[in-house]
């Protein structure tokens, strides 16, 4: 069974430029998460989807971050414009659905560097 796929694995951009990350969850997993992880820290939730609906986006900086999950499968996270403080690893995870949120499967992450 294929795991959670993320691309790109690495991205270097200049500040004020836009950037997008893509995630393909495990087949059949209805819940999808985007996390931000700073070096040596735990993941921090940005947004959670149940199918195509964003059910928790309270920690998403909506002035510059946006996300979508068309058709309830793949998802894209966008930052526009990027700031120096956005440099971090962006992790995507998926789980079967409500009641199974504690069993999350993570992708390898996208390491973003903003210069």
């Amino acid at each position, binding site marked *: 069974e294929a795991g959670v796929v993320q691309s790109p694995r690495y991205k270097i951009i200049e500040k004020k430029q836009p950037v997008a990350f893509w995630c393909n969850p495990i087949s059949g997993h209805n819940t999808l998460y985007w996390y931000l992880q700073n070096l040596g820290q*735990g993941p921090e*939730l940005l947004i*959670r989807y149940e199918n195509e609906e964003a059910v928790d986006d309270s920690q998403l900086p909506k002035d510059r971050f946006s996300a979508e999950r068309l058709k309830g499968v793949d998802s894209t996270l966008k930052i526009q414009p990027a700031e120096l403080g956005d440099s971090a690893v962006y992790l995507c995870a998926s789980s079967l659905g409500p009641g199974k949120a504690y069993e999350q499967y993570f992708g390898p992450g996208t390491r973003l560097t903003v210069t």
Partner: protein
Amino acid sequence: TQLLEQSPQFLSIQEGENLTVYCNSSSVFSSLQWYRQEPGEGPVLLVTVVTGGEVKKLKRLTFQFGDARKDSSLHITAAQPGDTGLYLCAGAGETSYDKVIFGPGTSLSVIP
């Protein structure tokens, strides 16, 4: 606001030694998970504990959930270099069980 604390933050030990890392909170969790994350990879789920006082074993790793479901420990026996990584605990809320929060992690280095 629910918070998870982990200790120690960093741990460097020799191969063959035993160690214990801790995960603590003032909040009650419906379940608690332990993940291991290697450099350049995403976290990998090791175990889920649900019942207060529960003990689970995974080869040389022993996980325990506190009686009050507010804390947990991970004990590694005879650590090996392959155990090196960031150990994260995560808790699912007692009332909002779909909301999972992560601790800051314990970075373990096992020296050959």
